[in-house]
């Protein structure tokens, strides 16, 4: 899912940097309003938890395994601005510590996984949670990963460095992730169900609208 | 020499409805050496958080230094060490962790640097200052956490099990630092063995979360049935000599007991 350097044109990569820079900048400011300077760092502890949870192998039929991406889950658990910050930390560390993706492409990876995945997941969950909570988590996980695949497909397709046509890259990314996204959706729903069941006080918007419940201690 | 901590009727319930501490009133005078003992789950740790001003208790107040009930006003005078050193070391290097308190609490850079150097030297951390905290061993982490509380030179120490994973050599060093500390020391521990080496006064927290006894070390630690009723075992030396010697003769520490034995056995 990480785009390496070489796939994107400098212009496209630059646009991704600008877009994620703006989104992350807004998230930083809103997080400060919400948490204050002093409690923001604690978000890092939760981000580390999501990162580590990505290492778990989820069995899928056929003997192989799938992994959790967690952007939508971060949006659901933490809300849009804190979710974006948490996933920004995750994606940045994946690049600069584990060598996933690329330096110039980091902007694109942040945009796909820390901005789009989180915001779309959050928006879908909010829109649908009145219908069915776990179902909403499933659709959020699935829809968010599909939309962020669309963003990647657009970026790569518009780049002249990558010889395939826009239509082809977009349709391959979207169709592929519509299927793969079912797994992300199922994982998001499973984890959400467990956490919401054990600690109903933790989950966004269950008691008080839109802000973290004080019990999170963030 | 007034009270440094004056707690009135502290009670605290967790969100799930269980009562952690129940109506605890206590006063700690300047310069006292107090041990708060209690079995696991007795509410001892909650009491530490309450006295350290780190939770809003359900009821009750804590007054600090006869001047304020808001711990944030006197953060630089309270050294609270929680049990798990991993909760204390959240920076990218050990040095930054040791600097965190002094920097946040407005200690001048130079003074902080000198204190850090001295403490690091005492606690064998000098070679580890540029390491990432997660690369330390359990004992090293514990020492770094202790240091991170001492760096800003607080008047009152509230320490939960500061010797957990520390090995023998540094155990003595930390005990020395506690003994040499010029202010007040409150030690929270589930194991009474350590208590006589540090404290003069013992507060026993019972399993229902109330303070069931408060008195001189000897009086409480030699009362085997009181301790057992609240889920604790007396210090090993007390277990040994209980009923064999009178309560006022029972040795409380290993070195006392050895002295006694070598006198009697020859």
């Amino acid at each position, binding site marked *: 899912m990480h785009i390496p350097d070489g796939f994107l044109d400098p212009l496209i990569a630059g646009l991704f940097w600008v877009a994620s820079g703006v989104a992350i900048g807004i998230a930083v400011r809103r997080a400060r309003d919400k948490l204050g300077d002093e409690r923001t760092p604690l978000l890092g*502890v939760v981000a580390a938890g999501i990162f580590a949870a990505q290492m778990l192998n989820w069995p899928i039929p056929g003997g192989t395994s799938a992994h959790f991406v967690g952007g939508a889950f971060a949006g659901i658990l933490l809300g849009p601005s804190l979710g974006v910050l948490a996933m920004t930390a995750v994606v940045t560390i994946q690049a600069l510590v584990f060598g996933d993706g690329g330096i110039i492409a980091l902007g694109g990876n942040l945009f796909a996984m820390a901005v789009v995945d989180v915001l779309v997941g959050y928006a879908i969950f909010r829109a649908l949670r009145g219908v069915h909570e776990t179902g909403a988590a499933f659709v959020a996980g699935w829809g968010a990963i599909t939309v962020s695949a669309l963003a990647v497909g657009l970026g790569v397709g518009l780049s002249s460095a990558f010889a395939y046509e826009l239509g082809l890259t977009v349709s391959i990314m979207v169709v592929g992730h519509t299927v793969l996204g079912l797994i992300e959706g199922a994982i998001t729903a499973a984890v959400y169900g467990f956490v919401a069941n054990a600690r109903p006080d933790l989950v966004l918007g269950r008691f008080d609208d839109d802000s973290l419940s004080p019990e999170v201690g963030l | 020499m007034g009270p440094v901590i004056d707690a009135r009727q502290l009670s605290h319930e967790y969100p799930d409805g269980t009562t952690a501490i129940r109506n605890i009133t206590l006063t700690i005078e300047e310069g006292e050496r107090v041990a708060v003992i209690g079995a696991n789950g007795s509410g001892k740790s909650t009491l530490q958080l309450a006295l350290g001003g780190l939770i809003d208790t359900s009821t009750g107040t804590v007054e600090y230094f006869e001047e304020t009930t808001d711990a944030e006003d006197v953060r630089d005078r309270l050294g609270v060490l929680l049990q798990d050193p991993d909760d204390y070391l959240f920076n990218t290097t050990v040095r930054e962790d040791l600097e965190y308190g002094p920097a946040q609490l407005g200690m001048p850079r130079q003074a902080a640097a000198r204190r850090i150097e001295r403490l690091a030297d005492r606690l064998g951390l000098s070679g580890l200052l540029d390491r990432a905290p997660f690369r330390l061993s359990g004992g090293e982490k514990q020492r770094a956490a202790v240091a991170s509380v001492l760096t800003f030179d607080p008047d009152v120490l509230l320490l939960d099990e500061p010797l957990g994973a520390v090995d023998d050599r540094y155990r003595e060093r930390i005990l020395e630092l506690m003994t040499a500390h010029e202010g007040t020391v409150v030690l929270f521990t589930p194991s009474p063995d350590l208590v006589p080496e540090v404290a003069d006064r013992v507060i026993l927290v019972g399993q229902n979360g109330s303070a069931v006894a408060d008195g001189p070390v000897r009086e409480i630690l030699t009362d085997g049935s009181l301790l057992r009723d609240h889920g604790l075992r007396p210090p090993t030396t007390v277990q040994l000599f209980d009923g064999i010697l009178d309560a006022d003769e029972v040795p409380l520490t290993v070195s006392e007991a050895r002295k006694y034995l070598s006198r009697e056995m020859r």
Partner: protein
Amino acid sequence: MTGVVGRSVEAITGALRSVFAAERIAASDGFLQRRDPRASLCAVAGLALAVMITRTLAVTLLLGAVTVALARLSKVPLRRLLARSAVVPLTSAFIVLPQAVLLPGDVLVEAFGIAVTDAGVSYVVLFTLRVGTGVALLSLIVVTTRFSSVIAAMKALRVPVALVWVIAVTYRYLFLFFDELQRLVLARNSRTAGRSTVRGGWRDVKRIAGTFLLRTIDRGERVGRGMRARGGARPPSPYDRTRTVDGCDYALVAFAAATVIGSWVIRWGL
């Protein structure tokens, strides 16, 4: 061991191995290790940008050679650099391989009605090399720069303090959580013989993941208290750490800037 779920342990161990191996290289005394992290980050990013810009094989090869030279100067074993950065370009080559046939050009080989063109082959080669060089440059940063220095560089480059803090804390607790998660899976492995179905395995991971995330949230609360006990309720005010940027740092950044401009001029002219 113990099925797909149980193998999560190996995934974590593998990730840790690569991080610690990188850390050992970062601790050695080499050219990039001696640079101010701001300088090496900017310079390597510049080189990556130059690779991104170019469409010329010769320039790509030249930049690849610069990367290898930097690796040599920084005591990075070439074999390790290659091992770290081989998988991605090979996968990329596989993805663009059809272009060897699709791109119009002079036919090199023809079989079963499929014609491999010279333009197609050179595109595939160039693309693979560009991706490979890009990945190698990132690996170079990863293995020569401690993350604590990267954090310091971010602060110096005026990334918002709140964001830098979040990243630093994430990095710090990541390793603790890797350990915790590994132990949770090991404790499960000790009570299962690996006969579980996909469904049973799924149920296990769901509970492990859920339990684990709850534990991390608890940890967050405790770390918050640990901070507050030492003045964390006040705005962050760390002591400054001044670093000196030396001539080599400037030279390196200037060199990177020159390659970007050079790459630009070769592609688009002045």
